[in-house]
């Protein structure tokens, strides 16, 4: 008897299974017809890396502080820089991102203090030749033109605008060091620090004040020197 019962319950369950799939037959598909329809990328989406520029002046926000290059876990960022003799500010002469090894981890964006580099929701950068995936500064700047962003703190841009010295926007190299910004390194023996100043958009308004705070704290921090940014920084580093 058990066998017969098993048989009928087996058939019943097979039919029930058919109904589950049959139910889906009438449903509307959940996929998108890709080239025609596109998914709207969320704001935080980490797609291709771009360089942002100041919407007013059109100049790159980058101050060639090399922080992103140092933060990059794969060594995909290569920066060459020069000092503007008039303003004594650094500016990038070469900014290359090798998208063949870029991991889209977002560490460069997090390390940047000047809204200069950002991972955007852009995608679709397939090419036939691998070498085309190595983006130079012009390409990166071009990609970043239409990217909206909330300026976190832009003292550099402001100052540059005031001083009307467009080519070198950005701070002095020394200033950059502090912006990675540990508040009180001395207090914690294990040298691990929070940095609330790095908070994102929500604190944008308060940002100017904070930058000032950091600037005032600058000299002591520079002595700490465990940021990984040492004097070699003054040398031009060709990266890889």
């Amino acid at each position: 008897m058990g066998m017969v019962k098993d048989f009928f319950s087996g058939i019943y369950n097979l039919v029930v299974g058919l109904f589950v799939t049959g139910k889906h037959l009438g449903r509307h598909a959940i996929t998108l017809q890709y080239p025609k329809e596109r998914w709207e990328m969320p704001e935080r989406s980490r797609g291709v890396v771009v360089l942002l520029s100041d919407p007013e002046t059109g100049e790159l926000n980058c101050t060639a502080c090399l922080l992103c290059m140092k933060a990059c876990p794969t060594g995909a960022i290569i920066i060459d820089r020069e000092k503007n003799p008039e303003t004594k500010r650094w500016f990038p002469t070469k900014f290359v991102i090798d998208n063949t090894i870029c991991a889209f981890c977002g560490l460069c964006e997090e390390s940047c203090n000047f809204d200069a580099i950002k991972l955007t929701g852009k995608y679709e950068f397939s090419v036939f030749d691998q070498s085309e995936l190595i983006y130079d500064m012009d390409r990166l700047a071009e990609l970043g033109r239409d990217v909206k962003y909330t300026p976190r703190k832009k003292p550099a841009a402001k100052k540059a605008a005031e001083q009307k010295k467009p080519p070198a926007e950005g701070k002095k190299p020394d200033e950059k060091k502090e912006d990675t910004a540990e508040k009180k390194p001395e207090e914690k023996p294990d040298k691990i620090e929070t940095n609330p100043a790095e908070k994102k958009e929500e604190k944008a308004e308060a940002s100017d004040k904070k930058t000032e705070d950091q600037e005032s704290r600058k000299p002591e921090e520079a002595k700490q020197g465990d940021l990984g940014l040492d004097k070699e920084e003054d040398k031009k580093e060709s990266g890889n």
Partner: protein
Amino acid sequence: MDEKELHIGEHQEQDEQNPVARELHTEEFLVNMGPQHPSTHGVCRLLLTMDGEVIVKVEPYIGYLHRAIEKICENRIYNQITPFMDRFEYVSSMLADWVYALCVERIGQIEVSPRAEYLRVIFGELQRIASHLIYWGVFAMDLGAVTPFLYGLREREMIMDLFEETCGQRLTYNYIRIGGVSQDINPGFEQKCKKFTSYMCQVLEDYETLLNENPIFLSRTKNIGVAPPELSVAYGVSGPSLRASGVNWDIRKDDPYGYYEKFEFEIPQGKNYDTWDRYQARVIEMRESCKIIEQALDGLPEGDPTFKMRASFKLPEGEYYARIESSRGEMGCYIVSKGEKKPYRLKLRGSSFNNLMIIPEISKGLKIADLVAIFASYDIIMPEVDR
């Protein structure tokens, strides 16, 4: 190779005692299942010695996906390692991030804010559901039913959307960082997440009607690949596969990390120790994960979950073997720090590494179709094995 020949020789001797085999001159043959095979889940090569359809011996050959992550990590500063952890185990990379963060935190005695711990639990459990959904689909697909795979992926996409909205990526999140998480959740995340968990519970019922009572599915899974508890423990099998072997062992409960002590959930255990139990353990675990997420969302404290490390900090001297319950089992990270910016030694323990070892043991004498079912039931993910 000589060993294999020896092996075949042995069986030929046995065959000579078998009159049918002697008369027909049957012979065992070798089949290379993989490295490129639909159901080895990545590039795993199983060298099968087969007697017709029956498996005589299985020898796994791994390393096709070896990326030397341990070596790479020795040359990276601590902050740079999380992206590699994502790639160490890309099916549940949230949990891989977590084990690394946990290890560094335990060595550096870093306090994690309560909100970050709650978020970790939420995202870890979402990740567990996402991984089990893939498991569910792939398991059914390896038994020949393709449709469940698509259903599983459909639900997984919803989790991916939640992840993408929060951390910007769908697969390699880089979200759980040392000391916290990378970003706070967006407003409205809780509602979306709750909506998802209640939807998930409904969908699981659909899943169960589709497969759980299906006689074909039952005949393919019941009493196939029985792994008794002693054997599983001896081979270091972990996670749902170990629990399916009737062992009450869940690192979330037995060696708690994060805030798992605060949540209530059941640990399913198997009774027959077979493929079916391993499947069922994961399906039940999805429900339990939903429960945990709901509890965590209800108790989510206010505060700031992020914690920014100095660009290259020095971890104090020490060593620790951290382990968490990943979706596949015990995922371990062992770091030896010598007070430098970079780890002196970083060893990763993937749960699939041990889980794969037991497969040759329990699949002897079964059919090739059963091997596929067993392989799928252990949820082997090759990047975790090869590292």
